[in-house]
């Protein structure tokens, strides 16, 4: 075979091999996929249901994962945010969740960490939930998951915990006892015929 043909075949083979191997060796490329230049290496994902229906007062668990798609370790805070759809405002989570933020010291490249948030549904309404990550060094923009929809129905109960018999019964019983005492005394004294 002529030398020119050999060189061409070897070049083509090298080129193919190079294109196959290049993602492994490039320091700027993710193992799981191609990242466009300047994109966030952290991926946030809600793993619990994408649509939740609950009743006010219940406690739900929002599960998610944080994954480092980049090639260097990252540290920061993962946190939950809930938006009130009807009022169009993010809600103050003070009464909803005791631990809104989870500090992550370091997540290694390729590592995926599961997380959970327990959320007490304080008020009925329509909400969206996202989980976010903010890095410590500010080298990347905040990453958000895809939103989960939450519908909270109001809590209706006329006699929760059997409070009604006590709330009604104690005053009635007390007034009855006092009334009987005073009536019998009044009768003894001749006030009541």
């Amino acid at each position: 075979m002529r030398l020119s043909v050999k060189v061409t075949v070897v070049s083509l083979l090298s080129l193919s091999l190079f294109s196959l191997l290049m993602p492994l060796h490039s320091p700027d490329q993710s193992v799981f996929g191609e990242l466009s230049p300047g994109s966030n290496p952290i991926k946030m994902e809600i793993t619990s249901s994408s649509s939740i229906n609950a009743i006010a007062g219940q406690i739900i668990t929002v599960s998610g994962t944080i994954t480092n798609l980049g090639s260097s370790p990252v540290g920061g805070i993962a946190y939950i945010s809930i938006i009130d759809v009807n009022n169009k405002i993010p809600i103050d989570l003070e009464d909803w969740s005791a631990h809104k933020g989870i500090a992550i010291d370091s997540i290694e490249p390729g590592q995926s960490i599961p997380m959970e948030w327990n959320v007490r549904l304080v008020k009925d309404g329509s909400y969206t939930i996202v989980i976010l990550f903010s890095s410590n060094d500010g080298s990347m923009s905040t990453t958000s998951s895809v939103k989960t929809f939450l519908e909270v129905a109001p809590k209706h109960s006329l006699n929760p915990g059997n409070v009604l018999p006590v709330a009604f019964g104690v005053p009635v019983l007390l007034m009855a006892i006092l009334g009987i005492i005073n009536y019998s005394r009044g009768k003894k004294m001749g006030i009541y015929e």
Partner: protein
Amino acid sequence: MLEFFRREVYGNFYSWRGAAWLVAASLIFSLVAYLLMTDKELSLLQQGEMIYILGEVIVALGVVMSAASASSTISGEMEAGTMESILLTPITHRQIAVQKLLSILSIWAIFYLISVPYLVVVSLGTNLTLAAVFYVGFFGTILVTAISSLSIAISAKLKSSKSSMMTALMTIIILLAPTMFFSTLFRTTSFGIMLDQINPVSHAINSLDSVLVDNQQTLAEQFNHIWPVIVFLIICMSLFMIYTKRLEVQGTQ
């Protein structure tokens, strides 16, 4: 020789004086307990906080009841003209005052017994029932005894129902102010902290908070709140002993 005490207790019920307080208290407890359990937002509080709110209401109402009743107990009898005939009997003045104090405490005892079913029903499902019943009774009894003895001393000294009731109720308002009226922000200032440290009612309320919300139920954990309340009781009882040594009717001028 509890004849005087017996008459006081009968008088509380047959004249509707004490009975009115008990009926009013039961209605207030019913309202608070029902709201805590059914109101859209209140019902979503942690159960410990609900019990704490109810406990706070019971203790505060008990303290107000004792101040209002005790502050006119001696001056009221003097104004009604019934004290003169009592002072002519061999019963000593101190015995009169002590038995009046016991009659106020008997009203508190019934008051507290009425509150127990409410505490139980609001705390159902938690491990806080016993702690709630114990600590509300403990702090309520000490504060009611202290406030009653202080109010009786005021009543004996001032001899006027109007003045002694005003003085006693002003004292109660001052004691209740930090927990009821002051903002959380003010209470975190150094002045607010100092007020909380010297105020026995604040100690009682903060202790209830610690027991029922933070679940620190042992007496040892509450010792820092208990001893100031007991010191307050000792001070009030001392004033009681001083001013009830001799009861004098108003002289004619």
